[in-house]
């Protein structure tokens, strides 16, 4: 508040009455929790289907199975809030650990795969660097050259997938160094590290997007880019940085799943982007930008994986998994539409 204002005499007329304000704040928080009833309902149904569902082992299982995708959902959420889209995250998810594996693994051990050019200790930085470079290139095309983000990242999705198939010869990298498998396979305090990492990343993102100027600038850009620029936000720089961070997060997620499975397949992440978009939208993130929260995105991905887990426990045959995955997305959308009360556009 500038001192010029406080020195001015205020004419009659009080600000908005506090009770109304309280109620709208409460409502805003409620919107954030829109999926919680649905999550509880699925929990109850799951418990009826199989008492195993609510046991600690199974809950950890659900959390671990969703942890990698959840990080990609977080990445996509950041991009969507700025009003852009990044389809190539699913290929980054496969390619970033793929490149590290290709540079590190010894062809003598893996029947000719890899080049064994880099020591294994550099695996993690390599993965993250690959992700950051992909994001920077996306930003170059979208921000600097002003190309349409949807088409650019669709092209990148195909190019990066093709690159992974090329360097791996369509085969699977294995015999990964310990530095690559550690994060994805180890446990801290009896809970897999990937769960801790995922929860920590979401917690950090909640704070950054809710409580920092940089985070709020994502919402401003997605809401009205001209107004954001008029408010002094360097919109191009913020969008570019967001794309880099999102790709880096996707690379980290790829590292975690490679560590868990101790391999990188040529198809790692293939088709995952649809699930990622579905989770974000179910969680209340708008495809038009400017709307949605990190916490909402988390509840979206959680709801999706809980339903899948319930179906598995119910013994649904594997041939029906794809059909049910699609149906789950549609049902979850309808459920969140009913509980959230607002149309998702």
């Amino acid at each position, binding site marked *: 508040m500038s001192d010029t204002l406080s020195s001015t005499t205020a004419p009659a007329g009080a600000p908005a009455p506090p009770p109304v304000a309280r109620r709208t704040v409460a409502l805003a928080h409620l919107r954030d929790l829109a999926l919680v009833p649905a999550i509880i309902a699925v929990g109850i149904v799951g418990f009826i289907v199989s008492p195993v569902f609510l046991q600690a082992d199974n809950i950890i299982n659900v959390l671990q199975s969703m942890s990698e995708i959840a990080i990609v959902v977080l990445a996509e959420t950041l991009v969507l809030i700025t009003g852009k889209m990044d389809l190539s995250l699913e290929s980054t998810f496969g390619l970033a650990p793929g490149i590290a594996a290709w540079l590190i693994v010894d062809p003598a051990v893996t029947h000719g795969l890899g080049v064994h050019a880099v020591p294994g200790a550099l695996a993690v930085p390599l993965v993250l660097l690959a992700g950051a470079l992909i994001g920077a290139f996306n930003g170059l095309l979208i921000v600097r050259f002003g190309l349409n983000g949807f088409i650019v990242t669709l092209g990148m999705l195909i190019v990066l997938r093709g690159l992974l198939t090329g360097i791996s010869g369509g085969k699977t990298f294995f015999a990964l160094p310990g530095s690559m498998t550690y994060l994805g396979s180890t446990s801290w305090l009896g809970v897999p590290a990937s769960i801790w990492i995922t929860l920590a990343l979401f917690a950090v993102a909640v704070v950054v997007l809710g409580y920092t*100027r940089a985070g709020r600038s994502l919402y401003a850009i997605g809401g009205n880019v001209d107004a954001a620029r008029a408010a002094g936000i360097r919109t191009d720089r913020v969008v570019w940085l967001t794309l880099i961070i999102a790709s880096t997060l996707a690379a980290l997620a790829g590292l975690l799943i490679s560590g868990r499975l101790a391999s990188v397949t040529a198809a790692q992440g293939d088709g995952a982007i649809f699930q990622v978009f579905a989770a974000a939208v179910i969680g209340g993130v708008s495809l038009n930008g400017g709307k949605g929260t990190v916490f909402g995105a988390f509840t979206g991905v959680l709801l999706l994986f809980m339903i899948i887990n319930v179906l598995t426990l119910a013994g649904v045959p594997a041939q029906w998994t794809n059909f049910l995955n699609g149906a789950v997305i549609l049902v979850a959308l309808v459920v969140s539409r009913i509980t959230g009360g607002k149309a998702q556009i």
Partner: protein
Amino acid sequence: MTNEEQATVVEATGICKRFGPTVALDRAGIAVRVGETHALVGRNGAGKSTLVSLLTGLQAPDTGRITFAGRPAPPLGDRDAWRRQVACVYQKSTIIPTLTVAENLFLNRHDRGAGGLIRWGALRRSARELLATWSVEVDVDRPASELTVEQRQFVEIARALSFGARFIILDEPTAQLDGTGITRLFDRIAALRAQGVTFLFISHHLQEIEEICDVVTVFRDARHIVTAPVAELDRGAIVAAMTGEDISLTGDTHRAPPATDAAVRVVVRDLVTASGAQASFEARAGEVIGLAGGGASGKFEVAEAVVGLARPTAGTVTVDGRTLRRGSVPDALAAGVGLVPQDRHRQGLVPLLSVAENVTMTVPDRIGRRGLLSPARRDAFARRFITDLAIKASGPQVPVSDLSGGNQQKVVMARALAGDPKLLVLITPTAGVDVRSKQTLLGVVEQVRGRGSVVLVVSDELDDLRVCDRVLVMVRGRVVRDIPSGWRDNDLVAAMEGVDLDHV
């Protein structure tokens, strides 16, 4: 310009600005003194918007000087420095609809505590204090998308003041407001003025200017014409300055109105548009009716409701006894309505398709047989219009995007004529076209009326309206005058500005 005793908030002198071949400002200037409410008026294209963009630092003048309180204007890149000098409430919102009012007020300058984290409680409190200081009664926790136009303007004004600016430009603030909203805005302006805020007020409505402004500056054709206290310049003088006294009388365009016994072909009865504008009129065979009015008069809404582009909330449109289905373009086309829309790029043309395809778009049945289009017949059909309207294109296959603006507009006109319309609706038909094309386009009106059809010309360009038998003038959603052909420019402009010149 007389009194030098008062300090100026902003002074611009000898300003020239060109955009390509167009001269937007030609040695123009303005001086706004501390504490006054200064009106800036002029017809479309007079250079008002350009002046605003120069005064707010969005663009730099080619030549000339801008000073704030005697000091030269800050460099173009220093947005913060500009914001401390001047703020503009544009017609287009600079509010972010998805964020709360509080956050919009302190966007990118949020109140921060330990670790650089935003203190939302403090921010909301500052927002509430800020709005209370300027007595804006808006709940700061609501999303900005829920604000009315009026509240949005108040919030933008409060935000501008919080940067330290005490000079605010209001760009046609009343255009989107209703009567009570305007009254509240004027009360607010008066209150802020008492608190020492200076305003530059842009409006098309002269009585608004009389109501709240002290000084008026008139621009015409990119030049500064006059600056004088409102009390010393009556409405007639302002209108004269806006139009230029040299063209006070119309030429020989006056012609006999259609015979009173000619059949009534078009009836618009009690039409109410979604925005609340209302109109009723009848047109006889061969009659040309003008529909004129300023920015928020509702003339476009009425025209779009007549042709089915927008769905009216009440009323009927009847063409030759056939009542059109509300909000249905196909039904309007079938009934014989031809349209030249307002925005030819958005609604009038498919730029990558050829002239022939664009011209015949609404009449596929005339150029085809058994459901298949015949390119030969299509091109022959289009060639007729290329000759009739003197469209400068090497052939019917040329993509419309290759044509000049005037010729593109002729293609739009050809498309409207392709179905031999019984009612031809022309919305700003000559906007942005050169003089020769203008003549051709307006010549079409003469041909169409000769065939006994009705023409509705929706425009505020005097040249467009001169071909009309009578002009219906709309102000704030109502038809207020029905002026027969042979009017004087000043009378018509005054009517559009909502002024009665009879008492001047």
